[in-house]
């Protein structure tokens, strides 16, 4: 009897819940994180204490959080979805005010030792709120214009705040993440068609606005777009990162140059190698086989999440799972596409692998919700 056929008569309670976790998902996450530790050792030139060790502590703490959250019943999540969203929204405004005082773009608030990045938290709470909204909304109203407008406003309000930080990447993630929940909830495809058409129009307008008084993006963002369109135009300037990344990635070949043998990354041709460009290091050192293995692990994570969502008859739990796995999907797809030169460089981490506290904790928090949904699914 395979795990997927596993059935229990009723929702487990108490400590027994631990037996009903989505264990394959836990192991997949641990496997991906382990690849991350390995790559962090490699980019630190064989030193464990530089990046790998702190990352391991964070991951261990994160795993404890996943399991702890898995014990929290679904009604609690439904209950806090609105307050959580409001809190995050206020924090975003607070960040904006702090940012006014500080210099340039500030995206976090320092609360003692913790550096809180509200825009990251917002990714989770937006999914929570939208899931609760569609769980509450009768199915027949889902595609009615007014009932479509409400979630759109709920998405765009925080997005607007993030956009003026300015953080285009996170804004796109918020819109896409929210869109995935709306899509899963069954909002008519026409709306999506219209939004995509509008997005294309907006992009056209943005490009058109360049150099005019009403320029919609900052100069550096325009330069990133230029770089994306033709990285070779300025190989030592803005295009440097992308060109170097592609060279390193491509030169990995079928089986790579071997652990810690990646010439490009070790010789500092690669920028940001422990964060945004860590996939390049993996691809250079372990080649196509290594890169595909990571991609396969990611795909399996998405697969297990979707299976869990589709087999869950609780609409709220199901939507949360789809929303969070969708966000996770966006993370790795955007990062990989960026380092391969398919998207403009915008500084996004590779989920569970890149060095960095906030994104890892937020992702593990999200997977805690997925586990909670899985454990408390109706039997």
């Amino acid at each position, binding site marked *: 009897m395979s795990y997927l056929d596993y059935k229990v008569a009723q929702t487990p309670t108490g400590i027994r819940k631990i037996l009903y976790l989505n264990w394959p998902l836990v192991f997949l996450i641990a496997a991906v994180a382990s690849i991350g530790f390995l790559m962090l050792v490699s980019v630190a030139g064989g030193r464990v204490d530089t990046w790998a060790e702190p990352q391991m502590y964070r991951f261990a703490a994160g795993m404890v959080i996943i399991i702890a959250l898995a014990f929290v019943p679904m009604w609690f999540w439904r209950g806090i979805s609105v307050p959580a969203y409001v809190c995050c929204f206020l924090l975003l405004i607070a960040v904006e005010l702090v940012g006014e005082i500080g210099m340039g773009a500030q995206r976090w608030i320092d609360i003692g030792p913790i550096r809180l990045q509200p825009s990251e938290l917002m990714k989770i709470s937006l999914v929570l709120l939208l899931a609760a909204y569609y769980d509450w909304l009768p*199915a027949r109203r889902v595609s009615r214009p007014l009932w479509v407008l409400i979630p759109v406003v709920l998405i765009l309000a925080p997005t607007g705040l993030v956009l003026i930080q300015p953080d285009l990447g996170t804004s796109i993630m918020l819109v896409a993440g929210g869109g995935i929940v709306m899509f899963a909830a069954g909002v008519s495809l026409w709306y999506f068609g219209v939004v995509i058409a509008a997005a294309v129009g907006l992009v056209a307008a943005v490009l058109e606005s360049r150099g005019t008084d009403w320029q919609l993006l900052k100069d550096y963002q325009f330069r990133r777009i230029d770089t994306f369109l033709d990285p070779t135009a300025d190989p030592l300037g803005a295009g440097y990162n992308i060109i170097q990344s592609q060279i390193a990635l491509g030169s990995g070949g079928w089986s790579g140059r071997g652990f810690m043998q990646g010439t490009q990354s070790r010789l500092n041709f690669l920028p940001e190698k422990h964060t945004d460009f860590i996939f390049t290091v993996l691809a250079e050192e372990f080649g196509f086989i290594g890169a595909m293995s990571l991609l396969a692990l990611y795909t399996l994570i998405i697969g297990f999440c979707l299976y869990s969502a*589709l087999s869950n008859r*609780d609409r709220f739990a199901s939507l949360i799972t789809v929303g969070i796995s969708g966000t996770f999907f966006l993370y790795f797809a955007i990062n990989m596409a960026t380092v391969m030169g398919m998207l403009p460089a915008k500084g996004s981490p590779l989920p569970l692998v890149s060095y960095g506290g906030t994104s890892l904790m937020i992702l593990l928090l999200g997977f805690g919700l997925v586990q909670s949904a899985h454990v408390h699914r109706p039997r």
Partner: protein
Amino acid sequence: MTKPVNPADAAGRSITRRGLMLAGIQLGVVTTLALKLRSMQVEHAEQYRMLADGNSIKIRLLVPARGLIHDRNGIVIAGNEQNYRVTLTREEAGGDVEPVLRRLARLIPISDARMAELLDEFAKRSAITPIVLADRLTWEQFSSIAVNAPSLAGVTPESGLSRVYPRAGDMAHVLGYVGPVSDYDLSKIEDPDPVLMLPEFQLGKVGFEARMEEHLRGKAGQRRVEVNSAGREMRQLSRQEGEQGATVQMSLDARLQNYAAQRMGTESAAAVVIDVQTGDILTICSSPSFDPNKFVRGISSPDYKALMNHDHRPLADKTVQGVYPPGSTFKMVTLLAGLEAGVINAGSRFYCPGHTEVGGRRFHCWSRGGHGSVDAVTSLSHSCDVYYYELAQKVGIDRIAAMARRLGLGQRHDLPMSAVAEGIAPDRAWKQARYGQSWQVGDSLNASIGQGYVLASPLQLAVMTARLATGLEVKPRLVRAIDGVPQPAEDFPDLGLNPAFLRVARLGMDEVMNSATGTARRSRIVREDWRMAGKTGTSQVRNITAAERARGVVSNDQLPWNRRDHALFVCYAPYQAPRYAVSVVVEHGGGGSAVAAPIARDILLFALADGLPPLDAVPGDQQEAMEERHNAMRLFTPEAPRLTRA
């Protein structure tokens, strides 16, 4: 507060359908990513690999070991030695080099001036360029730096090869020396070999080293190194040693050269020994000399000034660069010109009353009392000037000049040395071209005894002597073999001189040494099988005024050194089967017979004996003096000759 679930709810089916659609979209994106990965890493991997290598792999040249120079017996006369040096890279020193330099100054001496110079250089150069702090360190200094390396960040002890001349001053002029490449050197070379840009490369600057540069340089090796994006070297990928330059075997005999140098002592002099059969130059030695190793290492300014201000001009190569009026050593030329022209024969006689009058001017013979009736042979053995004054008027300058050129004067012998002088074998056309004046009879008289416009280098005089001894057009050479391949000895063509006339000249030279009244009788060789023929010469470096003459001939001893006559001597031996020709010029030495002849004879003896001259080869009354001289010399005695390539 679990909400009851209605399984029949339409939303349930909707989420299933949308979930599957979402899965499809995500699978599509994953597939796109995988295809892109495959395209980059599998299909275009080679292309990216090349770009990656170009990014990080640089080729660094390795200075090749310079070819060795051997003497004719395989003794190394220019070799390579390990040079220990330390370099410092600012970046590795953490940006501030001064504390590191101060710490280093406790291990090796660094003067305050040098310290300031270094700091200045570090400020100017890139942070990743290694700069040489000190070289020619002793092994002790080198190892103490290596041991203390952990506290000397950025300091790298290195070892490389540097040129060394084991015979120091003996061959300084002929070999020349090497040195670092200067901007001026580069400006003279079209399309310079990139290895010249390396700071440790040594280029032949003058002499044989410069002229044989292409053979001695060798081929640069290559190191493929990986560099980081700042250009710093991270590791070496491969190393291909360069090819050492060719070993060049010279015709020189290091021991003979050493003996010649010692024999000339502190005189300002030059000596050339030629093998008359092959043209091999066994010795070409200018005195006093200098230590070329000092130039390789960078000569100090006081040392250089001392060399420049020395009145014996140690830096000048008197053998090929110095030209002197050949004096009476030129008389064989005039004699042969006369004989060949048919204006005289061996028996023709001229009367020498001690002087002759031409065009109202009186030309003196060196012998005030005159030589009386003089024939060809005695004209040489007694070195009668009047004989040649008379002969010159009959034969004319143009035929004398032509004979001079046939015997190798007034032409450049192309040896791989620096500043080889052409000398002057003057004729009418030459004077017209040079001074715009017509040739005077008096000019001919002066030229006939090797004075006036005639100029010859010691090398040319040695070649002349070799040609007289053999009747062949002997050409001097310095290179016997390159990389073990012998340079073929030339078959010298006959000069086309009547052998009977040559015999007259040789007989005259024999009588100079061996007749009872010969001018150089004192310097003869008494061993019959080494019987020697020669000719003295004394050339004036000033005009003797009528007033001086009236007071009587001023002895050279009473003149300041630099106004004394040059002493010259040319000779060859054995008389019957000539092997070696020697020329010696002693600047301001006084008389040729007294000063130059004994030196030339001793050098010739060394060549004949292939070792220290046996005492019984010289007249008995000179043996004691010769022994004393030998005992006072610090001669070079090589161990077993090293014929293998070191």
